[in-house]
């Protein structure tokens, strides 16, 4: 696994390497290199199995983290290729030409995070939602509780407790602190 990372380092600039397990590594690359690194891993390093593509919203940094997770089914290795893109008008190069199922992940990201993948097939069609006219729901600024209370007629009388406080009251009512 180490030599693979070194091989990538000779061709692309990697900003961060995280070792999770002996056979699972995560690397951070620049946005412009990401699809090339994935293509390189697929064609040269035999990471022929594409597991997932997902986004993580780092709202405090103003960035989306995209993770391409690939695995090598012969040597049983996993590698995650991370890249950070801007949150505003997020776009990313499409990787639909590499695997057939990549387009599905990109469709979901477009709908749930608002990340555009120009050229990806059917990327503008709604995937999970129907008739959604708010901001993409998986963005962290979208408040699901507020939206639910405004839209779906909450049943009156429902109370919400903080679990820590509630358990303390239930289990140790006499304890002071």
């Amino acid at each position, binding site marked *: 696994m180490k030599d693979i990372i070194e091989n990538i380092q000779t061709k692309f600039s990697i900003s961060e390497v995280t070792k999770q397990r002996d056979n699972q590594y995560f690397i951070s690359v620049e946005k412009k290199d990401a699809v090339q690194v994935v293509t390189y891993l697929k064609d040269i390093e035999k990471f022929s199995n594409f597991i997932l593509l997902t986004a993580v919203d780092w709202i405090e940094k103003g960035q989306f983290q995209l993770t391409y997770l690939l695995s090598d089914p012969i040597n049983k290795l996993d590698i995650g290729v991370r890249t950070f893109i801007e949150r505003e008008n997020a776009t990313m190069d499409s990787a639909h030409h590499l695997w*057939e199922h990549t387009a599905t992940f990109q469709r979901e990201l477009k709908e749930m995070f608002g990340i555009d993948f120009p050229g990806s097939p059917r990327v503008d069609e709604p995937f999970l939602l129907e008739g959604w006219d708010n901001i993409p729901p998986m963005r962290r600024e979208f408040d699901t509780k507020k939206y639910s209370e405004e839209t779906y007629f909450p049943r009156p009388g429902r109370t919400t407790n903080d679990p820590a406080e509630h358990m303390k009251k239930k289990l140790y009512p006499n304890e002071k602190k």
Partner: protein
Amino acid sequence: MRKNNLFHWTPDRSAFPTAGADGKLDIDLDSHKFVKIWHGPNHPGVTGNMSLELTISGDEIMESKTHVGYLHRGFEKLYERRTWIQCFPTVVRMCVPESDSNEYNLSVGIEELAGIEIPEMATWLRTLTLEMSRLQALLRIVPAQGGTLGLGLGVQWGVYLRDLILDRFEELTGGRIYHMYMIPGGVRGLLPEGFKDRLEENLKLVDEFAKNLKRLMLDNAVFKKRTIGTGYIPADWVNKYGIVGFVARGAGVMKDVRKDYPYLAYDQLDFEPTMSTDSDIYARTVIRWNDMITSVDLLRQIMAKMPTKGEFRAPTPNVLHWEVPKGEVYVRSESTRGEYGFYIVSDGSKYPRRINLRGPSYTHAVSLLEKMLVNANISDIAAIMVSLQTCPPEIER
């Protein structure tokens, strides 16, 4: 690919549409040669609550599009508002027929991020529950393959036996479908007294059922005629479409997380997943039928090898204030349908930053099914869907 030569018939495809330069079919709905129908969501032949938009000519499918999202609950959004331990009651609801893979993946992910080693007893108990969960899922879905072609009797037997396994689950965990038995650090309890004997009694019934099901379904002439050669998947699609689990094994590609990335006690157990190269519905049914027998065998091995007592839970920080260390991890386990993975990102706070589920149906039911259904007969849709064992809730979460 096996050919069913008796009654083999090649339809006249001369009037069918031709693909243009961009690969899209030239389908003009106003020409009255094609009909667009919605197969589902309220259709008895569709597995779960999903739908297919089909363009058909005669009874042959020209184009199909999968529509999902009928079960979308926004779990991954809700986890932004839940602490790590509060995720457990909802995470099991991500996949209804086989809920234990979810709780296993989440707890093992948290343990890996926090660096917790679980005791040996917990390892065995987790293996036992995962295997029981696999058995109950198979008891429902293997006879259902016959059910899609009109053979309802096997379903009646299988669901009854599945219920007996669910009774054992109820005894062990308190719940029939959703167990929430595995928690970070181990499991919630030890086996009740006499549990193994009662499970063994049920397993004897399953043995008998497997024999009967072979006579009823796998040796049935009509079943063979309908399934042999139908729903063919070439082996080179496996990496192209991200096929996992028994579907890949049916195409002749060995994929089983229990063997490839041994977890829990699976490296101490003796088993061999079945393979086939026929890659049709019949082959996939036989593989799952064999999986069922393997599962029974594994349960017996686990019960014989597991320690009788011991610590079943490692100490963890107070779960109500637990701040799981920063990091990201991908964990996987083998569900009935194939590799079932969780991608977990923690930012070091009380709440998870991201928990993403990658289930096998995500590719099986969308990109693969859309491709497989082209030129299939409309009466085979249900059989093809059950042979891929698509499970909509894990696509849409």
